[in-house]
């Protein structure tokens, strides 16, 4: 019976502390009964090989012990869909936050443009550890919640929902909003703001090596830019919460209006640009011919912004009309259903 003792010792190592002795005593009694029964059938004592066969059929000690545990999962089947949903929804936002923080650190921090690639590489290299930590924290949070519910606080009950609260049918399948594209749009918009903020102190970000040529040029940006610059930054920043709101499933109904609001802010940027009459001024005495050329450049840029503004306003008006019409259509559908 030495094999049986060794087997029970191995099982004991993995058993939960509570009730361990009791479980082992029961296991011993059952296994001994089985061996005795087998001996009665054979009319002799079991050989060591036969004893081993009985124990091996009973199962590997760690697996046998694990079945006496009260909980075999970190996150149960009720909570798992919510855990998975949270991970899927929050991961792009975490990537966005990480990218924005890292870009701000790189662009606003000290250092030359030469090691920019190196610093970007470092940030990318750190990302897997950050992502893993994020996953670990979310998983741990849900595991603690799973463990605690029913023990320290009431069990989670699913909220009441109504089929009428579901978003309306998306008639245009091609324009179906994708969460990934929305998150990417938000990420790029945040990066553009960071980039624009960094441009005054790091002009190479807009012109690259051409920034050296700019120093020798006889013209420069007008003082108007100091005002316009912050107005544009303000409008771009105002777009970010609207784009973030578009990602929320609870605001899916309002997504069309949020998109229109973002476009309206874009039009306001064009309005500001159209009001700027002079983009560049001469910074030293230049010939009459060069002045005429500079004037032509300023007029050309203003005209381009005017055309862009006119097109944007027409598109905006068309989309606004469509949104109003779609809203009326939805209301009619709802009344018809009622």
């Amino acid at each position, binding site marked *: 019976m030495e094999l049986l003792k060794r087997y029970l010792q191995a099982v004991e190592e993995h058993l939960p502390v509570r009730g361990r002795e009791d479980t082992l005593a029961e296991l011993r009694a059952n296994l001994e*009964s089985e061996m005795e029964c087998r001996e009665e059938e054979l009319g002799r004592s079991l050989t060591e090989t036969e004893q081993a066969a009985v124990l091996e059929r009973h199962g590997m000690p760690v697996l046998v012990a694990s079945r006496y545990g009260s909980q075999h999962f970190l996150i149960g089947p009720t909570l798992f869909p919510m855990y998975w949903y949270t991970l899927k929804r929050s991961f792009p936002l975490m990537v966005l936050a990480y990218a924005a923080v890292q870009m701000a650190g790189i662009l606003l921090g000290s250092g030359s443009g030469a090691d920019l690639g190196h610093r970007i590489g470092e940030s990318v290299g750190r990302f897997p550890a950050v992502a893993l930590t994020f996953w670990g924290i979310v998983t741990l949070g849900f595991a603690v919640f799973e463990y605690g519910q029913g023990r320290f606080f009431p069990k989670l009950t699913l909220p009441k929902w109504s089929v009428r609260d579901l978003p309306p049918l998306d008639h245009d399948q091609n324009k179906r909003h994708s969460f990934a594209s929305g998150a990417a749009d938000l990420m790029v918009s945040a990066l553009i703001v960071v980039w624009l903020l960094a441009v005054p102190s790091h002009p190479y970000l807009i012109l690259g090596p051409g920034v050296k040529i700019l120093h020798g040029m006889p013209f420069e940006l007008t003082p108007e830019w100091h005002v316009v610059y912050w107005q544009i930054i303000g409008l771009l920043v105002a777009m970010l919460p609207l784009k973030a709101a578009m990602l929320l499933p609870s605001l899916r109904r309002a997504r069309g209006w949020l998109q229109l609001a973002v476009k309206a802010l874009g039009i306001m940027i064009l309005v500001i640009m159209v009001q700027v009459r002079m983009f560049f001024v001469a910074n030293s005495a230049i010939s009459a011919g060069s002045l005429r050329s500079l004037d032509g450049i300023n007029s050309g840029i203003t005209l381009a912004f005017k055309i862009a503004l006119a097109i944007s306003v027409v598109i905006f008006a068309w989309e606004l009309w469509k949104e109003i019409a779609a809203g009326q259509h939805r209301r009619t559908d709802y009344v018809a259903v009622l």
Partner: protein
Amino acid sequence: MEPTTKDGAVKDSASSAELFDSLRLELRRGCLVLAVLAQLRKEHYGYTLRKSLAEAGLEIEESTLYPLLRRLEQQGLLTSEWREEEKRNKRFYRLSAAGQQIFGLLLAEWNRINDSLDRIVQKEG
């Protein structure tokens, strides 16, 4: 005819057997509880319970049955008692009052499902 996937590819017999095993396990899981409750209307200890179930045609691994007994006892469906039998201490289980009530409900549910399945299979046949 071989089972096929959605895109028409024929599944190999190994994965088909694996699928069957997994579905069979799922099907058996609920039935085992019912069988154990039924058998414990009469007192048994672990080993004799397993033997009696096997004799009735329902083989259960020891490593599945013994923890199941503990769980059913924790849920209040079984009562247990340590007693000496044939010079050895053994833990005897039997159905509790709550267990008898739940067993009656589960049995009625099982019969309903069985009848429905019979009707469905006969109708399709």
